[in-house]
């Protein structure tokens, strides 16, 4: 079914105009742009693209703006302080899209069978008290950073599948959640493997399931930009995506497919991630944190739609918002549609 | 009950402010203490009241306080020291409460002292509603309520204007005439001293010593405003004090 609304029409028109512009050598070289990033391995696509000169090849002079959390990054995109960024789909992101401020233009981190993904956890205290499976978490405290965060989504999808109810407990920061899990003040959580595994080994919690078992093909993070960039700066946006895609390819080749030198890649990523630790200590975490970044920044729109619908069903975002409001699908290949 | 001062001396660190003061305060008399500023009159009064301790000498109570006396040595302050959050009634009941006097017993006492100080109509007033003279009457009523053996009055009229001062002096004379009380009355005002004092003690400037004790025999009730006899006393006292006052005035403040 095709819903053809005004926004879509505008996007199409914008697309046409930009496409016609592309025929000419699009961009003056070294156009300065700002890319928002968190110091996580999942942001490696951008790091590699900059380090290996892929952005420069695309005619972009990229400067990173580092953030502590995804939320302020989304706001920085909306305010125009940052041009492009990669982050999880959150309620805040959808609200900003609804206000006409931002657009999702591509996919990044994706759960994929066969590659270690995010884990559901049960705290050791709860485990010792007899909570051995996710089903046993019924009525228990489940940690999230904030209402409407990706943790909230993952917990909620799991609860729905298990037919249980959870007490979602907002703790703002991952660090605070880890503390609360260790001290047994919350009972369940989900997190990326490189955080989940070492502390599971240390006995702080137990990994009981994979997120991908409950949410197949979960599009965890997406590439997004301001609505203005998506509509009016088509050349620049495509240039950014081109650089980013090459970075993603290199990442997959080195870290997943084993067709390139992994050590060199780890060393490169270490320039941005775990910089406070020496390389030999950071390397295992970087390798453990390996996840699939969508090739060609392909976007799983089915997953995005599922997430959007969940936010709407929880009353966290306006129920009138359509996928087209959130996503500009004219840039990358979409899957699952 | 009499009060006897026995060789009182005092110093702040090495700075001597008072020396060898011997004085007898007999029952039923008002003893006025006058002196130039800084001679330690108020300090002497605090020694008598037990609010401060002299370095040398002793303050003695001679004989037992009269029956029913709740607070033998009772102060009246220059700035009245009324609790602003209590009514006239409440300010007086304050000093009775700690002696376990409440209810009807307190009412009898308070009604009596309010009547004696002509304050019966103001029982429910707050201090802020009263003039300075009225406030000091409340303070006097409060002092009377504890049936003191000796009233220690520290410049009680100094904060008042001269007309009010005259009125209050009349009131004090009336009070004494109806029921003689013992008082030590510190003042820098010679007119007050000769009007109210049976004895006037003149202190010298620092270190404070007794210069002279003047006895005024004329009965209190017979003394009047600008009484020629009193004027003579006042003039004599002024002669005694003039040089001291001048020197005291020229002195550097030491504390």
């Amino acid at each position, binding site marked *: 079914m095709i819903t053809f609304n005004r926004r879509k029409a505008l996007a199409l028109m914008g697309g046409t105009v930009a496409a016609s512009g592309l025929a000419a050598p699009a961009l003056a070289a070294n156009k300065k742009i700002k890319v928002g990033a968190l110091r996580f391995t999942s942001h490696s696509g951008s790091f590699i693209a900059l380090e290996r000169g892929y952005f420069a090849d695309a005619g972009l002079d990229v400067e990173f703006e580092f953030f502590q959390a995804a939320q302020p990054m*989304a706001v920085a995109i909306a305010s125009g302080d940052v041009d492009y960024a990669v982050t999880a789909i959150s309620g805040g992101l959808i609200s*900003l899209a609804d206000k006409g401020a931002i657009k999702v233009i591509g996919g990044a981190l994706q759960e994929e069978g066969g590659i270690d993904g995010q884990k559901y956890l049960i705290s050791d205290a709860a485990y010792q008290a007899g909570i051995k499976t996710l089903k046993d978490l019924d009525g228990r405290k489940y940690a999230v950073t904030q209402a*409407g965060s990706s943790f909230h989504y993952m917990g909620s999808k799991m609860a729905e599948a298990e037919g249980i109810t959870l007490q979602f407990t*907002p703790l*703002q920061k991952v660090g605070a959640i880890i503390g*609360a899990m260790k001290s047994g003040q919350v009972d369940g959580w989900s997190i990326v493997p490189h955080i989940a595994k070492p502390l599971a080994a240390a006995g702080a919690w137990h990994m009981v399931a994979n997120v991908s078992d409950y949410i197949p093909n979960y599009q965890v993070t997406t590439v997004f930009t301001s609505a203005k960039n998506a509509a009016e700066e088509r050349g620049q946006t495509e240039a950014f995506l081109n650089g980013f895609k090459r970075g993603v390819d290199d990442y997959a080749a080195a870290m997943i497919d084993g067709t390139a030198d992994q050590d060199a890649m780890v060393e490169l990523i270490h320039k941005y991630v775990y910089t406070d630790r020496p390389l030999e200590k950071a390397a295992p975490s970087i390798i453990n944190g390996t996840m699939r970044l969508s090739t060609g920044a392909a976007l799983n729109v089915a997953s995005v739609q599922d997430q959007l619908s969940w936010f709407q069903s929880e009353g966290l975002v306006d129920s009138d918002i359509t996928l087209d409001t959130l996503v500009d699908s004219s840039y990358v290949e979409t899957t699952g549609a | 009950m009499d009060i006897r001062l026995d060789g009182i001396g005092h110093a702040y660190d090495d700075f001597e402010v008072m020396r060898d003061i011997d004085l007898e305060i007999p029952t039923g008399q008002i003893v006025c203490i006058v002196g130039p500023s800084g001679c330690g009159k108020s300090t002497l009064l605090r020694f008598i009241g037990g609010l401060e301790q002299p370095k040398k000498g002793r303050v003695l109570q001679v004989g037992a306080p009269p029956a029913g006396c709740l*607070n033998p040595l009772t102060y009246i*302050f220059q700035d009245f020291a009324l609790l602003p959050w209590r009514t006239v009634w409440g300010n007086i009941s304050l000093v009775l409460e700690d002696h376990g006097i409440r209810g009807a017993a307190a009412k009898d006492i308070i009604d009596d002292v309010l009547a004696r100080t002509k304050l019966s109509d103001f029982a429910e007033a707050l201090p*802020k509603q009263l003039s300075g003279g009225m406030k000091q009457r409340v303070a006097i009523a409060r002092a009377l309520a504890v049936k003191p053996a000796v009233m220690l009055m520290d410049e009680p009229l100094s904060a008042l204007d001269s007309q009010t001062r005259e009125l209050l002096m009349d009131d004090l004379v009336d009070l004494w005439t109806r029921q003689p009380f013992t008082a030590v009355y510190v003042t820098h005002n010679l007119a007050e001293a000769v009007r109210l004092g049976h004895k006037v003690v003149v202190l010298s400037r620092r270190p404070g010593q007794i210069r002279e004790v003047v006895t005024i025999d004329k009965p209190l009730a017979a003394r009047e405003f600008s009484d020629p006899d009193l004027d003579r006393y006042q003039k004599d006292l002024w002669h005694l004090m003039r040089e001291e006052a001048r020197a005291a005035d020229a002195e550097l403040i030491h504390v």
Partner: protein
Amino acid sequence: MSESSAKPVSFRGGGFAPRSVRWIGVTVFVALILIAEWGTRSGWISALTLPKPSDVLDTFRELYESGLLFKHLGPSLSRLIVGAAIGASVGISVGVLIGLFSYIRSGLVPLVAAIFPIPKIALLPLFVIWFGIGEGSKYALIAFGTFTPTVVATYGAVDNVDRTLIRMGQSFGLSWWSIVRKIVLPGAMPGILSGLRISLAIAIILLVAAEMLGAQYGIGAYILEAGSLYDLERLFAGVLILSLLGVIVSAVIGLIERRLLRWRI
């Protein structure tokens, strides 16, 4: 002197005595809200910058009609009341002790000065470990935040109690406890109450921080959720509730002041 050289002395007093003019405050409020409404409706202020005041009001109405308002307000009020009551009562007690005893003063004044500037929010994780993520840490945070300003206000107020009144009490042979209860405490009351004004405002500020961790319901949690969802209408509705709470607390203290401090000029 001749009449011609006489002229009236020009008036040069006056001024420097601001008084509050009725309705001006309300007018300023209304004017600002109208400007915001007009600006957002005409598009001169973008939806990203400021929500429509009428939408905020709608959100507030929905919140009220759905009963969620009281579901949020209930826990917040109980946290505020319990936390502030603990903080203020301990603060007043410690403040009075500091005001009365040399050793306690020497021991505690530097300590209070040291903990006063600590942003209490920074200690939240610590409180969570000490008191758990339940109500305990929330009470503790609010109590701790109200404690320090109350202590400082209280011992300042005790210091300012007229010493002659205390001497008067002693001269009438009042017991130590009577002097504290009947002279020191009422005398310090104006200072304590104006200190409470500040500490209760701080308590409301800290409510949002306290509800950062592990609160499913509460005005602070509601505001934080709205913030993370970038839902400006809800954000402003929540802020509106906090403001109203502040106005109510201030009015209640004003009422207490008028009752307890009738004696002041």
